[in-house]
């Protein structure tokens, strides 16, 4: 079971986890939550602006989830990614993977995030008090 969501509004990681626990069948659940840091090398972040290429983002994330599901025999896979204007502390992305054994759930989870970071068309701009800066890709 795969779910992919790309949305502007805030999401609730707790609710997403409750649903995952209801829907999954197997023993191991790994989740990753990435959120806006308050401090970066460039200073104190006021806001993070995320631009995206909607259709392509949905397509790539769904394909990534399908690949992971097949490769690691996942029982459940949920990916949500925000765009628009986010404040420090808010969640940007959440990935949940469930499988029979923990190794598969960990590997699939990291694969999805790594792949998404390299391929999914999102761009972050950090807004500071007096300046703003597009984030550079770091792999």
């Amino acid at each position: 079971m795969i779910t992919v969501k790309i949305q502007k509004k805030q999401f609730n990681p707790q609710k997403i986890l409750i649903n995952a626990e209801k829907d999954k069948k197997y023993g191991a659940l790994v989740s990753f939550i990435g959120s806006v840091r308050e401090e970066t090398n460039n200073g104190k972040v006021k806001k993070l602006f995320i631009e995206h290429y909607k259709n392509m983002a949905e397509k790539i994330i769904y394909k990534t989830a399908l690949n992971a599901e097949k490769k690691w025999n996942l029982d459940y896979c949920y990916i949500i990614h925000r765009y628009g204007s986010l404040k420090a502390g808010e969640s940007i992305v959440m990935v949940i993977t469930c499988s029979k054994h923990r190794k598969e759930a960990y590997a699939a989870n990291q694969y999805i995030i790594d792949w998404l970071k390299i391929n999914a068309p999102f761009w972050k701009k950090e807004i500071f008090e007096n300046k703003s800066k597009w984030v550079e890709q770091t792999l």
Partner: protein
Amino acid sequence: MRVLYFAKVREIIGLPEENIDLPSNVQTVEDFLDYLISKENKYDLALSNKEAIHIACDEDHVDKDFILKNTKEIAIFPPVTGG
């Protein structure tokens, strides 16, 4: 052809998208970038560092030698930074 720009590229060019008819001598993505660069200063500013420019044709990542013939939508953007 529908041409989309994102992030810094969009800001420098000053447009999120536009329609551009392919000149007959443009075959590949590389040709198209060169065509834009020679067209106007803002494209030159946005696209001349080609290493830092990524391309998707009809929603798939492609290399610079990709042939544009059947492409309906080309997206031009800096390396992605999501996740």
